């Protein structure tokens, strides 16, 4: 146990103050201290991307970051993506309509990667989409429908409508 470090960070637009063990991983903090269980652990080595969150607007592996080093950071997780309990975000809508998820374990990570991609490149080519999606592993879908969903989501966001 030993020493604890105080950090202040913003998670899903809410300010959080925490006293943490130096070794506490961001993903464990999100999941087990804040109850944000939509961020999943797949490998704990940064290989699979299931734990992807946005850290100061960029995708990050929450299994590779210590909370103690994140003082002042802005974190966004999948729980902060849908606009309301009734509505899904256009990216989520597109994943639903294109059957871009099966077991759903990797899905929150893919949603976060897609958020980053489309924020930086609203009309990505298929090659750019596939390159961006190498950030995450999926074992169920074979990726084709995820590529379609990202394309559809980009279109919907550009047109300001639902996917």
């Amino acid at each position: 146990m030993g020493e604890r470090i105080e950090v202040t960070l913003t998670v899903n637009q809410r300010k959080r103050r925490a006293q943490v063990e130096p070794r506490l991983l961001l993903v464990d903090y999100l999941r087990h201290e804040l109850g944000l269980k939509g961020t999943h652990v797949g490998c704990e080595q940064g290989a699979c991307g299931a734990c992807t969150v946005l850290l100061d607007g960029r995708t990050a592996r929450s299994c590779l970051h210590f909370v103690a080093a994140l003082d002042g950071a802005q974190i966004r997780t999948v729980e902060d993506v849908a606009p309301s309990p009734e509505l899904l975000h256009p990216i989520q809508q597109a994943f639903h309509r294109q059957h871009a998820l099966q077991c759903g374990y990797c899905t929150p990570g893919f949603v976060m990667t897609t958020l980053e991609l489309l924020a930086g490149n609203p009309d990505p080519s298929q090659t750019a989409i596939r390159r961006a999606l190498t950030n995450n592993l999926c074992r169920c879908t074979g990726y084709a429908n995820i590529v379609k969903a990202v394309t559809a989501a980009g279109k919907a966001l550009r047109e300001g409508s639902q996917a």
Partner: protein
Amino acid sequence: MSARPARYVGQEILRREDDYLLRGEGRFVDDLPAPIGTLHLAFVLSPHAHARILSLDADAALALEGVVAVLSGADMAALVKPIVAEIEFPGYRRHGRQVIAKDEVRFVGEAVAVVAAECPYVAQDAAELVEVAYQQLPAVVRLEDATRPGQPQVHDEVPGNLYFEGRFATPGIDAAFAGAAHVIRERFRSGRVGGVPLEPRGCLAVPEHGDGMVFHSSTQVPHLLRTALAQYTGQPESSLRVLVPEVGGGFGTKAQIYPEEFVCVALARRFRRAVKWIQDRREELLTDIHARDHLYEVEAAVDDTGLVLGLRASVWTNGGAYSTLPFGCTLETTGGARMIVGPYGITQYAYEARAVATHTTPAGAYRGVAQPTCYMAIEGVMDRIARRLGLDPAEVRLRNMVPTASLPWTNVVGVRYDTGSFVESLRQAMAMIDYAGFRARQPADRLVDGKYRGIGICSFTEVSGTGAPGWRARGLVRLPGFDSGIVKVEPTGKVTAFVSHAHSGQGHYTTFAQVVADALGCELADVRIVEGDTAATPYGTNTFASRSAVTGGGAFIRAAGKVREKLRRIGAHMLEASVEDVVVQDGRVHIAGVPGHGLSFQQVAETAYAMNTATLPEGESFGLEDSDFYDPPLVTMANAAHIAQVAVDAEDGRVTIERYVVVHDCGRIINPMIVDGQIQGGVAQGIGEALMEEMVYDDSGQMLNASLLEYLLPTAADVPNYEIAHIESPSIDTVGGFKGVGEGGVIGAVPAVLNAVADALSRLDININTKPLRPSLLARLIREARARPG
């Protein structure tokens, strides 16, 4: 009653599962709230493939604050009986497995102790402090070495490391070879892979009042798991409830029953506290079942037209260190030997099949089981026949296939193909990819723009929906075969349907609702599916081997049919009409042809539940529910053709899949969107297996790549856009006409990709008879081939 047209079956209905999963609200096993005071487990894993355990010192671990107990193999042996896979098959040798190794370890990753602590970080710290002294022993690792004289023995009960040996021969096999114009021989070697679901395994045992126990597990087989837990831990089966949360991919990996599950239940009983264990990725790669470590030695007797007159196969599978519940270590062996003839009308056949013991991770059921490898062999043979005789590989296949007009056909090992489209699916796939055009454009040296380009085919039959006779034929006496459903119209008219299955991404809440709504005659929105709860659902064999559409669908159709008849009887009574004049349609019970003259489900249900002033017909029982089981025939045979077009980089050996075509026939389709999703995901797994995935062991039995940084899964950049079409040949042997589709993608992709690479490199005299085809291997083979004179 005449069959009504399907309203929902066959439609692309979007999934009910998606909304909560997309919001991050899916509740996987590690997401479940654990009771305060839950003990967290960490296992101490053997670093040696084969060693004697000399001593175990837990003092330092126990001294750590928060550690409650450290248990050795001997401690656990007092709580859990040795696990024995009860296979009854001539030539099989039984052996037991302690859930924690007691005296001897037999593979790297086998648990030698378990730590129970107040928090998971502390449990892992303590596991690292457990001091184990080992006497290292020589290990046998490779399949090829296992049965050689003088090798280390894995089990005393398994002399010569031969778990299983089986033989089969048709009477005319020798004559077929004696009279053949050509004999084609080849040896095919398949590298070892695993299912590698994105979610590792985990479980949570929660003691209830009295002797009750709720056990949450990321399993594909809740009912089989419950029976096994009761059998080996002594927890009464009737007070044990297995609950399956969301499961993050299974692929067969989670259809085995693992030691950690027994340990969790036993320790929850022992400490009367909740006990939780969540696997990490290294443990997943080291301890979840492996598969496909196979060797096929095949010879085919062939006439001048390319017709196969007879086939001999010697099938070897590496069973690893133990036989695992519920499939044992012979599933791949008997599968490869029995399925290899595929869609071909081969009438003379002989096999020798052997499963060997080695000091490696136990083998088990991974998506496709032995079909990717046995078709790697037979489809490789078809290509070699073509090359030897100067024929086109597609033409050789078409000449050997069972034509549709000959169906139903019983193959040489006694498996019936009731309906199918072997020839049609291959012809359609060839048309989709413009096979003739590709061949016409393909230069003799196969070299286009610095890349060798080739095309490869896999035509295959796909075992699905296996019934009790099918498991008995393979010695699996404790695998039931049937699944069950309960369909219940509630007093408000809503429908709850319970099924013995448990999903891990297949979309059961959506597809089963489609089946029930059609079979019952109600609105889709009114049906809710319940599964993965042994306290609510009836018994069954559960979800693996492409079963759920066939067995769950069949059970639901039968159960819903009974409820529909009851709706008609009560409705007719209420309407003062005869039963023959009443139909159930679109959520109403009405006079045939007069939808306005009828009753809602709720009105009929209120009578059934005695919630109004109406009376039941004479002799009718209360309630509005019924159950039924469905045990399909021996197997339900789907079929498909895959064609891959590839480019192999002449310099670095990298393979690019340029086009990929699938024509699949799974009989009557429930939801085309979900069927395509199964195929796409399977093809990606097959591409991974063909080109990159392999569990690599060194000679001492160390697995060298037990991380996702080194065990490579395909990414979005490694797979093509899939072009998929369907032929529907409804099964005439199963209720509902459904055939399975869960495994076809991976089964077809492995041979199709290998054959495409072989075709691309065929003019270099490179023999492709192994997988995976990593760039390093192909680059070397190309370099060596180019350096050869001539």
